[in-house]
């Protein structure tokens, strides 16, 4: 516990909000799908930081699930959902 964990978690959350705005801008569906990838990495980072700073151990399991879901969601999007042409 260095006291850095909670501020860093907030900082990563701010990063996540900025990338959300960038993803909303588009312009292709793939750019929006990048949000799922970002949730897989930044979201996992936020959760493990919170698990240490709040001393809630099970949050690490939640982080694992989030990393897995990001993978499955991204693959499902690429294989199934994205059937249209490039720009929408």
């Amino acid at each position: 516990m260095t006291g850095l964990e909670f501020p860093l978690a907030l900082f990563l959350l701010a990063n996540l909000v900025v990338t959300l705005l960038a993803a909303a801008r588009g312009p292709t569906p793939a750019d929006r799908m990048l949000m799922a990838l970002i949730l897989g990495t930044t979201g996992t980072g936020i959760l493990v930081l919170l698990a240490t700073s709040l001393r809630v151990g099970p949050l690490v399991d939640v982080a694992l699930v989030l990393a897995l879901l990001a993978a499955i969601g991204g693959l499902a999007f690429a294989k199934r959902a994205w059937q249209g042409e490039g720009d929408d």
Partner: protein
Amino acid sequence: MIEWASGILLVFGAVFYTAGTAGLLRFPDVYSRLHALTKADNLGLGCVLLGLALQAESLAAGLKLILIWPLAMIASAGVSYAIARHADRFGIKPWRSEDA
């Protein structure tokens, strides 16, 4: 000493996360944005996880934290490959410097 090493790794992780965000905002096409996210963000996650694993109470807890990293790397490698291949098949052209 361990607290210092952990704090430094955590800050390094945050710097790499910020680099990934900057790349997403600044890069011109979907391929280079994928590049920024999958590499910089995963390095950030690795630094954060290593920093937290240094302060874990037990070996098992630390190993569990570190094991999230390969999982995230495999996930982002697979997803970025699928997205990039699909984008290429749909005819999204990679950005070239003469487009600027």
